[in-house]
């Protein structure tokens, strides 16, 4: 349903949290992270993929993810995995998001 009505959501502030969440279960490369976010949101969170890497670099600078070289289908790939502090940050972000989402729903849900 969302695929036909695809629109871009301004979720700049939540992109780092979504990246951390997509790395919780397994390490992934940039393309895998982008596709994972798009697929899991059923296309609603459609973002420009060129902006994914600056967010990944920021997370790496903050020590929340770490990158390493890997080979996939004979092709060298830079993969990313979440760190211990990244997991702690994700738990905090999730709690904040739930609180925010509840507050917004309380207001908009009345309309």
């Amino acid at each position, binding site marked *: 349903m969302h695929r036909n009505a695809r629109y871009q959501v301004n979720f700049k502030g939540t992109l780092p949290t979504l990246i951390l969440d997509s790395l919780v279960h397994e390490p992934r*490369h*940039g*393309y895998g992270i*982008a*596709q994972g976010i798009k697929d899991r949101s059923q296309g609603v969170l459609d*973002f*420009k*993929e*060129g*902006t994914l*890497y*600056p*967010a990944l*670099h*920021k997370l*790496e*600078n903050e*020590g929340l993810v770490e990158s390493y070289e890997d080979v996939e289908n004979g*092709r*060298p*790939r*830079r993969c990313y995995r979440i760190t211990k502090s990244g997991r702690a940050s994700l738990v905090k972000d999730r709690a904040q998001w739930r609180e925010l989402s509840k507050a917004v729903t309380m207001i908009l849900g009345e309309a």
Partner: protein
Amino acid sequence: MTAGLKLWLGQATRHLSKDSAAQVRSEIQEHYESALDAAVNCGNSRDHADTIALAALGDATTANRQYRKVLLTSGEARLLREGNWEAKTFCARRLARTLTLSMPGLVMLIAVALFLMGATGVARIPLIGAIGMALLFLARFLPIYTPSRSRIFRYVKWVILAAMPILAFGAEALKFSWLLIACLWPVAWVEWTRISIRRKLPVSRWPRQLYL
């Protein structure tokens, strides 16, 4: 590499340092190839797949703006390369190091002697000179190896820098503010650039000069 991707990368890597630009090129090319393969596997022609993969990357100028916030720019890389001249000049040679270490103390002694002789006005000049030299030269020899020590040192440094003109010009410090701004803007620019570099580099990769 297609012409479209080359153009996109050219715009996305503008003003980035050589290493940063190489990193961006490599990761975006990897990403583009995956997107291209996926589009071809969905039944698109090679040309159409190229258009889809490029469109998915978005605006190169926006990406460049965001890259410049997290990766070293060419100016910052130059500052890291060339901003270490004090260490190279003073720490590398034994004679220079000895002179450097003794000079602020010597000038301070002159200032104290002048104060004791009652020449307070003249004594201010060697005193300011001694503080300035100590700040510039001796900091390198202090055990500042952690971000918290570095932060404390920088606070102290700025307090001293602010106190120096007051000490030099006394009540007329504000009157000479134009002169101070003219003299201190390169220092302020270097400090501003260092703040930006500290945000971009993890602490483990900080060179010694970033701690000061």
